[in-house]
């Protein structure tokens, strides 16, 4: 009633309302124009030549720019977006790995292996968008935050002696990158649970339902990664979206019961498997928040060639049988140096529901044998020497079948060279003598300057920084073996610097061998629908081929841990002995000695005084006796 009595107020209210409406409408348009928060879940299955199965889970959430919707997130995990904003991370990758990627039989040249094969333990690298002198502080805070987020001892990477600053040999190279590894970190389900918490459906629905802990950790290799990219730069104040990729790569041994039942006679046949047999679970529909939710089955080049699959006959495959019909089939775009093509079968999870759960199985009919595409050179690393005083690290590179192909392809240009980057971080207690670097090509020692094109070294400082060595090797293409050796002295630590299990030894983190002239990418021939699958678009990106070497275990000499008190008391006694006896000799004067002798002579009774006087006479030396 009051409003009616005061018409101008009403008018004002209506006006305001209209303005608000307009403003809201404008806001929504603005939001639609920009990227919405998206989430995708994908699973890629790939049979491996050694009767194993690779399962690669790929979850990607992209967060919209935080300025548009404040601190509110629908899908994107808030913890991660706060982390990115707080430490101004441009790019970050954290991986927890158990087991070692078998480059020889699981391949190393495809995008799957070059981005998902990780060194054992924890690996963390991050690129920051802050001024140079703030990077170390940001890194320290980041390690602590991540260690809290993932229940891992990432905070050990805080001290300057554990992380390094790669100059150029580490692929995402730029000045602001920091790199650290914890090779001895044990990875278990307590790290997986917080990782799953970042997913909108956790492991309650969708593909993540398959993540059954016992079957995951039973595998040969297990690598759980978190990759963050803050697209665009936020230095100008324009905050753009964040892309969070969470991947989990496992290599499992399928239970071969089915194979035995069917083809008991044939031993070389690949084991048949199904999702329910390897994970013990089935996918009952997609996570409702996931936009593309799909499962892929990848048959790589070697396998499709072995099966005789070509672009014509891939619909009807004689050697195996799929339990579900694929929704789509993608063929790889033909590349120059290989005739056979990878084939990707796609299954959409959306079609399935609780009553009719999704389960895909692969039944092999005939035995097949194939090889995965390997890195140009197979790298391995070992220790030389015995004893606990000094030793040497050797990195050996062996040619694989790939190099032969590459060589024959490039042999026309005569002088063909293979560029290899080696990035090696050693902890400070491994005191490397860089002048002792030797290069062997085909078992012949070669001058270092002939083979090493570029070398960057930052020597380790005791308890301060690790030693970093970045080397660019230029090897002839026809090389069979190449080896780098470098000598080191084993350091001696204080007793409180040893790990609880000191006699186990200390780990030297993996070296990274990368081949910057080679890029692993898999481009699938298909239409626009491809762009919607983050996994496949990731495959299309050119990523450099790199491989990690083994972690080395260096036994260090231990002191006796039970001795501190004894050592302190004995040493101090010796020092006191020195101090006292020298002072005694210096202050002893003749007059005093005479008085002492007289006193002794006066009461020359008993055996002990006699002995003492004899001793003192001796101590005085023969000078007086002569007299």
């Amino acid at each position, binding site marked *: 009633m009051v409003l009616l009595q005061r018409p101008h107020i009403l008018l004002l209210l209506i006006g305001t309302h209209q303005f608000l409406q307009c403003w809201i409408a404008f806001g929504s348009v603005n939001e639609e124009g920009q990227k919405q928060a998206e989430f995708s879940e994908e699973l890629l299955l790939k049979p491996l030549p050694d009767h194993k199965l690779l399962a690669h889970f790929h979850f990607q959430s992209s967060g919209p720019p935080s300025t548009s919707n404040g601190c509110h997130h629908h899908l994107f995990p808030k913890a991660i977006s706060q982390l990115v904003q707080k430490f101004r991370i441009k790019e970050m990758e954290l991986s927890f790995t158990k087991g070692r990627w078998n480059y020889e039989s699981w391949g190393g040249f495809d995008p799957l292996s070059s981005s998902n094969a990780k060194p054992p333990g924890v690996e963390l690298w991050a690129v920051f968008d802050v001024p140079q002198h703030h990077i170390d502080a940001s890194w320290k805070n980041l390690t602590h935050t991540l260690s809290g987020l993932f229940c891992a001892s990432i905070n050990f990477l805080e001290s300057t002696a554990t992380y390094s600053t790669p100059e150029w040999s580490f692929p995402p190279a730029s000045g602001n990158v920091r790199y650290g590894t914890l090779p001895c970190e044990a990875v278990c389900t307590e790290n997986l649970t917080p990782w799953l918490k970042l997913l909108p459906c956790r492991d309650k629905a969708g593909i993540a339902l398959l993540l059954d802990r016992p079957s995951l950790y039973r595998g040969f290799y297990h690598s759980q990664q978190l990759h963050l990219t803050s697209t665009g730069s936020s230095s100008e104040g324009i905050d753009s979206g964040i892309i969070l990729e969470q991947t989990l790569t496992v290599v499992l041994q399928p239970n071969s019961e089915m194979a035995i039942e069917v083809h008991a006679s044939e031993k070389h046949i690949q084991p048949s498997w199904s999702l329910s047999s390897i994970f013990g679970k089935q996918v009952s529909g997609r996570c409702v928040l996931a936009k593309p939710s799909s499962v892929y089955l990848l048959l790589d080049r070697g396998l499709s060639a072995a099966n005789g699959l070509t672009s014509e006959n891939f619909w009807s495959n004689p050697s195996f049988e799929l339990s579900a019909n694929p929704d789509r089939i993608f063929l790889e775009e033909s590349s120059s140096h290989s005739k056979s093509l990878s084939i990707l079968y796609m299954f959409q999870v959306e079609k399935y529901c609780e009553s009719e759960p999704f389960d895909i199985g692969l039944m092999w009919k005939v035995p097949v044998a194939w090889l995965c595409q390997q890195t140009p050179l197979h790298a391995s690393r070992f220790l030389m020497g*015995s*004893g*606990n*005083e*000094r030793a040497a690290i050797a990195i050996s590179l062996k040619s694989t079948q790939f190099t032969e192909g590459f060589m024959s392809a490039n042999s026309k240009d005569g002088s063909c060279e293979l560029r290899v980057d080696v990035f090696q971080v050693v902890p400070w207690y491994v*005191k490397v*003598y*860089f*002048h*002792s670097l030797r290069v062997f090509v085909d078992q012949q020692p070669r001058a270092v300057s002939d083979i090493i094109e570029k*070398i960057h*070294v*930052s*020597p*380790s*400082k*005791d*308890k*301060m920084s690790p*030693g970093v060595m970045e080397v660019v090797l230029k090897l002839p293409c026809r090389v069979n073996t190449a080896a780098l050796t470098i000598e080191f*002295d084993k*350091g*001696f*630590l*204080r*007793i*409180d610097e040893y790990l609880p299990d000191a006699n186990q030894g200390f780990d030297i983190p993996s070296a990274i061998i990368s081949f910057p002239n080679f890029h692993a990418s898999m481009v699938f021939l298909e239409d626009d629908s491809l762009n919607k699958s983050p996994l496949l678009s990731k495959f299309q990106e050119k990523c450099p081929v790199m491989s990690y070497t083994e972690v080395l275990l260096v036994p260090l*000499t*231990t*002191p*006796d841990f039970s*001795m*501190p008190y004894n*050592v*302190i008391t*004995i*040493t101090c006694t*010796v*020092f006191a*002995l*020195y*101090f006292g*006896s*020298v*002072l005694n*000799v*210096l*202050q*002893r004067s*003749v007059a005093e000695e*005479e008085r002492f002798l007289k006193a002794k002579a006066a009461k020359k009774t008993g055996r002990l005084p006699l002995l003492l006087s004899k001793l003192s006479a*001796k*101590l*005085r*030396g*023969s*000078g*007086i006796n*002569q*007299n």
Partner: protein
Amino acid sequence: MEKLKKKIGSFSFWNWVIASIIFRLILIYFPKNLNLSSRPEVSTPLTSFRRLAEGYWLKQSSMSSYAGSMYHGSPLLLSLLGPLTVKRIEGQPNHLLYSLVSVIADVVSAMLIRATGQNLRLAYLRSLESLDLVKQIDVSEFLFSGDIAALIYLCNPFTIVACVGLSTSPIENMAVILCLYGACSRLIPLAAFGWVIATHLSLYPAILIIPVIFLLGCGPDSPPRKLFLQRHQQKEVLNQLKLPPGFSWGPIIHFAFWAFLWSVYVLVLCGISLKQFGGLWEMFKSTYGFILTVEDLSPNIGVLWYFFAEVFEFFRNFFLIVFHVNILFMILPLSIRLRHRPCYLAFVYVAICSMLKSYPSVGDSALYLGLLGWFVNELADMQFSLFLFCGYVGVSLLSPVMHNLWIWRGTGNANFYFTTAMVYACLQIVLVVEGVSAVLNHDRKLRILITGKP
């Protein structure tokens, strides 16, 4: 002693010198089998050849030679000796030139020791003459202490091992000997040069400034001045000519001037070579700082490495101060009591330093054992000399065995090796204590001879 005298009588001095040089050359030609350059007894973090080579490599690849915790020596040494670490002659052992430099340094040191020893002997005879004791003491029995000291230095297995093991201690020792030689023969610029270089290379010889001041102020070793006065009071004629000269400040000011000049020169040279890498502060931090804070805990023949490996972090600074002050505390009492014998004082200081320094090696022991030869006449009555000799032999045999058991076989533990280091420290303590008391007794004996009463 008798045996030694006979031996020296029968063989000539030069034969021994040549024999020791040939022995070194033979060892240099078999360096691969001996692997002496990586023995903990020979190469400490400060004197190691491999670290020198690493420092030179870093310098060549345009980095600071102190970039890592590898090299802790002087930048001058790097410029002089560095090129020799990479230079190779076809068909010859790898580090022939470098080893030859070590051999030359050893021979030069021995010659300087000999000259100084002769100087000291003459001074001693002169003072006996002025005390009119020549009749009472059989001067013909006096040994040629210079020759003995030089031979001890050259033929000592410790010196040979340090020389063949490519450590830099022959050069450090040469600087110390140069300083003492210069002070004894009153070549003040040379003494100042030796002192500055020795201090620059290994810090501890800095305390030799006290014996050098006494040497320059009142001349080489002689019996206490009081004896001369007593002698003349007995005669009741004060013959000023026969009195040893009193303390004179002139040469000391001269020395201070030269020492200042040389140290400025050395610092400027270092500054030039480290211009683009943090300058002199970086050098002091990683040479003197490294010596004083005992950062490297790799085993050596001293005791501090194990002590600081075991001691609790909380007490580390306290004990660092205690151990270094232990050296400084002894300076004053010793210099008061032995001020009339500056060369002997220098010997005692060198011995104490090599016992208490943070990274001792056999090269340091070789130095003081060589200097010991100067005082064969004064120390003739020293006690426990056989015990000490056996002890040194025993320790130098047992210590490598224990090291091998601990590091290479893994059957022993660190305590085995530490025990030998402990015994070695005790032996050196006994040597210092007995040596000081023998010299004081010797002075006492002279006084008794003069005053005629005990």
